[in-house]
């Protein structure tokens, strides 16, 4: 018989040191890699299994998205400002990067929900769900991303070789989106209104980020919003690494990346100390 003794007592997680809480979470994730795989398989593969169009759904929504922006641009109602590349591939690329960020956020925000049905029946480390959620999002994203790259090629834009750095450049997007989402997944159990409100706020952030217009847009109000918006730099860098091969605003990108990483670390700790308090409220 194994002799590992576990003790449960009130407010136990608050008594765990900050550093040891990170170590514990990393160990838990490593130990639950099979669980992560099984849940990933359950939710990713099977989402497509029970549909006639299967994986083609991944392509349908970005294509419809591009078409609608092209339509708007063609009518002349949009004035995107100076763009480094054609409008259509620009919107395609930046909006798929926005989608990447939003996916990090919303999949992390559904972390605790992803365990519904067994989260209050079986004990397992819930941080495993974050990994599974993120992996699932990345798997979906890589399919749409492939479509985007092919479309760029059709428009005559050959991605720069620096595209190999893409996985590293998008890390800050994960830290920021995943970090905030993780905290929201806990708050969503007790204050769902707040999370809804935050979702509405993110809809606003979409327009305050240079996605459907150029980062050099002349409108002074929009310019000042763009300047303070961290996503301007994070999404901008990911776009630049594909299109031009060098990151335009590298200082601000690095600073924002560091801040995003700190936000992620803080979020992990907040999740760690608070999530066990909400499980009993999830019934």
């Amino acid at each position: 018989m194994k002799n590992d003794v576990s003790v449960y007592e009130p407010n136990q997680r608050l008594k765990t040191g900050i550093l040891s809480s990170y170590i514990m979470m990393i160990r838990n994730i490593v130990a639950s890699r099979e669980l992560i795989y099984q849940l990933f398989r359950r939710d990713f593969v099977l989402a497509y299994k029970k549909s006639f169009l299967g994986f083609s759904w991944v392509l349908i929504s970005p294509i419809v998205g591009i078409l609608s922006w092209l339509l708007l641009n063609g009518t002349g109602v949009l004035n995107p400002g100076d763009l480094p590349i054609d409008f259509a591939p620009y919107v395609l690329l930046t909006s798929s990067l926005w989608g990447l960020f939003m996916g990090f956020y919303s999949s992390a925000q559904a972390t605790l929900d992803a365990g519904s049905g067994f989260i209050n029946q079986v004990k397992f480390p819930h941080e495993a769900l974050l990994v599974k959620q993120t992996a699932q999002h990345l798997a979906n994203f890589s399919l749409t991303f492939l479509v985007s790259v092919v479309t760029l090629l059709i428009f005559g834009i050959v991605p720069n070789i620096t595209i190999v750095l893409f996985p590293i450049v998008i890390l800050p997007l994960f830290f920021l989106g995943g970090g905030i989402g993780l905290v929201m997944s806990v708050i969503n159990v007790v204050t769902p209104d707040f999370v809804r409100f935050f979702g509405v706020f993110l809809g606003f952030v979409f327009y305050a980020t240079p996605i459907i217009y150029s980062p050099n847009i002349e409108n002074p109000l929009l310019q000042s919003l763009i300047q303070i918006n961290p996503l301007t730099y994070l999404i901008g860098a990911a776009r630049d690494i594909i299109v031009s091969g060098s990151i335009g605003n590298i200082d601000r990108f690095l600073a924002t990346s560091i801040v995003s990483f700190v936000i992620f670390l803080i979020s992990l700790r907040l999740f760690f100390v608070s999530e066990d308090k909400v499980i009993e409220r999830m019934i």
Partner: protein
Amino acid sequence: MEENLVVRVENLSKKFTRNIKHTLIYGTIDVLKSMIGFKPNTAKLRRGEFWALKNINFDLKKGEVLGIIGENGSGKSTLLRLLTGIFPPDIGTVTIRGRIGALIAVGAGFNPHMSGYENIYLNGTILGATTSEIHDKIEEIVNFADIGEFIHAPVSTYSSGMRVRLGFSCAIHFTPEILLIDEVLSVGDLNFRQKCFRKIDEIRKDTSIIFISHNMNQVQRLCDRVIVMDHGEIIFDGETSKGVSHYLEINNQTSQQNSDSFLIVNETTESISKLNLELIDESGVAKASLNYLETLKILTSFESNVEMEEVLIAFVLYSSDGVAITKFGPEGATKIIKGINKFSIEVTQPFFLPGNYYIGFKWREKNNSVIADATTKSFRITQPKDYTVSVGLIDSKSVLTKH
């Protein structure tokens, strides 16, 4: 914790709220407090909160089978969730040695679109087994579940019984050091239930078990010791038969308290009214329980506005879990007169063991139409002080002869 113990629960309390708004408000406060590093004061009750568990103390020894019994809402399932660490305690500590597995809801995380086979892998990993462990046991699991070709069909096509078979089979095969079983054995058909009991008998050599059930026969069959819970507190901890009898006692009291009338009438024809039935003692006075070996005597009366020549009047005695034990009543058909009818019936030689019982009946006319259908609330056959434990429902005497 001593070497021979696998579970130790000390001064354990857990509070819940009854109201959704309070749940949200207190939840938000606790989450925010924890996030900024303040420990929420879990030991104090706020408005709208109540103790779902209060000051629970017990130990579980290695290899012991402990039953937890109590009425619905007495805190049994909450206690299991604290033992597995799903819910954190508000006061007190839980110490566990070894891996703990729970059969709380079988088939946790089953995906309806995946085949039974694929779900074994999914469910197994959720229960904490590794893929190679599942690999080694999959054949055994499939055989135990015994659902034939369905194992390769999506779980959504299963009957509820098949789901339970598969879920139970998974759970029981990834046997941890401590197994918690919550009410799951009440489902499934008789054959499968018996198979489960055999499996439990097999694993109990190496596994400590905590068993929650409302079925007292199962509890008596399996448990070395029982805890009786009432409103979140332990009111008894000790020998199984005494615990069961203690539980039945309170159960009976509540049932008596809630009752306006001992007899619950489901249906009568228009011609019958004022149907009544009670247990009576030698002098004809109504009583709520019988002493062990005391004669079972009932008195029944009703008013009929027609005369009926041939009515089959019979009663059935049931055990508390609905097993019909014996039929009694007058031989052949009885004549019912217009006006008040009254019968008393005595069941001689009632060697029924202490426990809870009830009586049901369906009287019919000769043409088979039902004229009255009713059941009584449960009544108790009490346990004498010097009673030695027996198993089952009926007492029988046997003689050993050596050849």
